[in-house]
């Protein structure tokens, strides 16, 4: 696909217009696409069997685990997502040793207003109205700004591939959703800890559980509002900071942190040429006036010499000497004539 330069420039202009109208209409907040899908992970029901990990690997054609299901030693160190594993289950200890450990599944959260999508300079990442964030490897340049910007460390890169490295992450099993199926992890979960459905309904369900078992859950649903909310919701048994998440995240979507600055760019382009041109004009005028003054003095000197007015010549001589002295004095910290060197170049 190619676009002509004209189309490209008009595209730029249009997008500038669109973004300005969007911010002009920003009195209302974007609540996310209605009817979008999501998943709910209930950490009180999760037993850490990691069948979701296995299902995820199978469905994405990833090599099977080196550590088999049921092996507890894998939980000794918390793991992050990688190019071989798009979702991970980690174990978190409770404050009292006697209490059983809790588990949390981590993967791409599918934000309502994803930062990864906003920072991609080729739009290789797209937020679908259905909920999942999708990635187009055929566009990706490999700058990895998306991975860098993700606040949940949920994206991974295929560093080992020199030819066709991709950004990899949970797709919410988009192809399966399109076929009317549930995501593989939700289907594989034996305890019902992972539920798939409309996000609004999952929120309702989560609130119900919180009301019914107030002692069991941390009172907030992670993902309801964090950075504008996410499609993946997590019912936390412990406070987020004890389950590998950040506490008290702001509600403001992350892309908003750069929009203000980026909107300055067209203003700079509009203002700077005039402003700097004005400064340059002032510089030129000062130089021109100085030149004119010199010329006038010489003119007067020439006239006085022609008219042989000794008195006038003497007066001008004194005047010029005084100026010269002052100029020498002013110049002291500055350069002498020699170093002004090729300054006449641009006047040629």
């Amino acid at each position, binding site marked *: 696909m190619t676009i002509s330069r004209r189309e490209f420039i008009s*595209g730029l202009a249009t997008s500038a217009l669109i973004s300005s109208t969007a911010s002009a209409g920003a009195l209302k907040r974007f609540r996310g696409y209605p009817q979008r899908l999501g998943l709910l992970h209930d950490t009180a029901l999760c037993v850490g069997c990691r069948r979701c990990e296995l299902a995820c690997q199978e469905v994405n054609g990833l090599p099977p685990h080196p550590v088999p299901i049921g092996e507890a030693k894998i939980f000794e160190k918390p793991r*992050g997502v990688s190019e071989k594993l798009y979702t991970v289950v980690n174990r978190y200890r409770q404050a009292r040793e006697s209490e059983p450990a809790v588990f949390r599944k981590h993967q791409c959260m599918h934000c309502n207003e994803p930062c990864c999508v906003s920072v991609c300079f080729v739009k290789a990442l797209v937020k679908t109205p259905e909920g999942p964030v999708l990635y187009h490897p055929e566009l990706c340049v490999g700058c990895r700004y998306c991975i860098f910007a993700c606040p949940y460390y949920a994206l991974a890169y295929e560093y*080992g591939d020199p030819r066709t490295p991709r950004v990899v992450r949970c797709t919410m099993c988009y192809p399966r959703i399109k076929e009317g199926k549930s995501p593989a992890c939700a289907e594989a979960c034996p305890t019902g800890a992972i539920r798939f459905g409309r996000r609004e309904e999952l929120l309702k369900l989560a609130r119900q559980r919180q009301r019914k078992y107030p002692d069991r859950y941390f009172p907030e649903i992670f993902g309801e509002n964090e950075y504008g909310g996410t499609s993946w919701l997590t019912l936390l048994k412990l406070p987020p900071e004890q389950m590998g998440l950040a506490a008290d995240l702001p509600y403001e979507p992350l892309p908003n942190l750069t929009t203000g600055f980026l909107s300055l760019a067209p203003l700079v382009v509009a203002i700077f040429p005039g402003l700097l041109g004005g400064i340059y004009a002032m510089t030129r005028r000062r130089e021109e006036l100085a030149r004119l003054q010199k010329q006038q003095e010489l003119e007067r000197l020439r006239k006085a010499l022609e008219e042989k007015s000794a008195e006038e010549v003497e007066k001008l001589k004194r005047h010029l000497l005084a100026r010269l002295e002052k100029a020498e004095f002013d110049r002291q910290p500055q350069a002498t004539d020699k170093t002004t060197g090729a300054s006449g170049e641009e006047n040629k």
Partner: protein
Amino acid sequence: MNALRPGGIKIAPFYLVSGVILIFGAVIVALRYAYGLAYATNLTQTTTWGLWTGFKLVFVALAASGFTLTTGVYIFGMHEYHPLVRPAVLSGFVGYSLFILILLFDLGRSWRIFYPFLVQAGVTSALFEIALCVLLYYTTQFLELTPVGFEWLGWRRWRKVMVGATVGLSIFGLLLSALHQSTLGALYLTVPGKLHPLWYSPYLPLHFFLSSVMGGISMVMLLGWASKKAFGNKMELSWQELDRLTVGLGKAGAISTAVYLAVKALDISLGGKWHEVSSGWGAWYLLETLGCVLFPCMVFAYSHHHRKPGLIRLAAAWTVFGVVLNRLNVAVVAFNWTFPTNERYFPSWMEWVVVVFLIVLGLVIYRLVCERFAIVNQHPDYLSH
């Protein structure tokens, strides 16, 4: 000073040492492309931008020598600094070349570098603005240097045309630099949770721009000194004249560092971050801001007043070090600062080799161009006096 003495095979030790480093570096770059980023770098899934990104920021910040000097000379009319314009613009051009090279090494699929312009533009990305600025400013710098080439070729008319565009190019260059330098800071606006609060600031774009100005001015002072050392009498300026200009630039150094410090202090106050200053990270932050900006600022002011060019050059080198430290702190040291030590990213030796390779490459290109073209001297056919 002759690299290749006519009729002989005697090579200056500078080129001998550089040549070895360049060959070694080129091998590492080849390995990176043959076996992927995982082979050459220690990048992790959590720290995907490492040392190379840090040096992207460094190369661009120090390339500010070009726009600071063209602005001073052509827009503000400080013509006495004109003999330093070409060294400054050339080093800016070399700095951007290094930036582009290290960017290409770092990109997963560098051969798609033109995708944002030719395939699909993601205009909501700060990186798109950066890509556009680099493309336009690199071209601008090239055009600013074309008179050098035309003098060498003896194309008088073309030279005259391009010299006529000087002021326009300077204005365009300042505009693009202001955008590009600040947008590099804006890259980090998206990671408030990952970058230590002492370095993260909603004013990061402004910090990046202001520190690039002080870095750029300091680079001009160092370039003048290094060029005089390397080329001696070939250089148009005598030591005496160069010293006088350096003393003059010292004032700009003092003012630019002072402005940057004021903005940094405001950031700490407005952000309510004074309590952070007393932590271990705070000590490191103070080393960067007080140790490598305030201190050189005072040395600039003192030595400008007492006309001590040697001290000013020391302060300039110090300031450049401060800018490098700042960029590496933002990109590497204070990034993912909450991580336990064993999970932190530390650059591999190959990443360091590639950085050294690029710095040496920059020095070699700068020196080769200065030796063959009228950069530090005036072309004998085009003397303005």
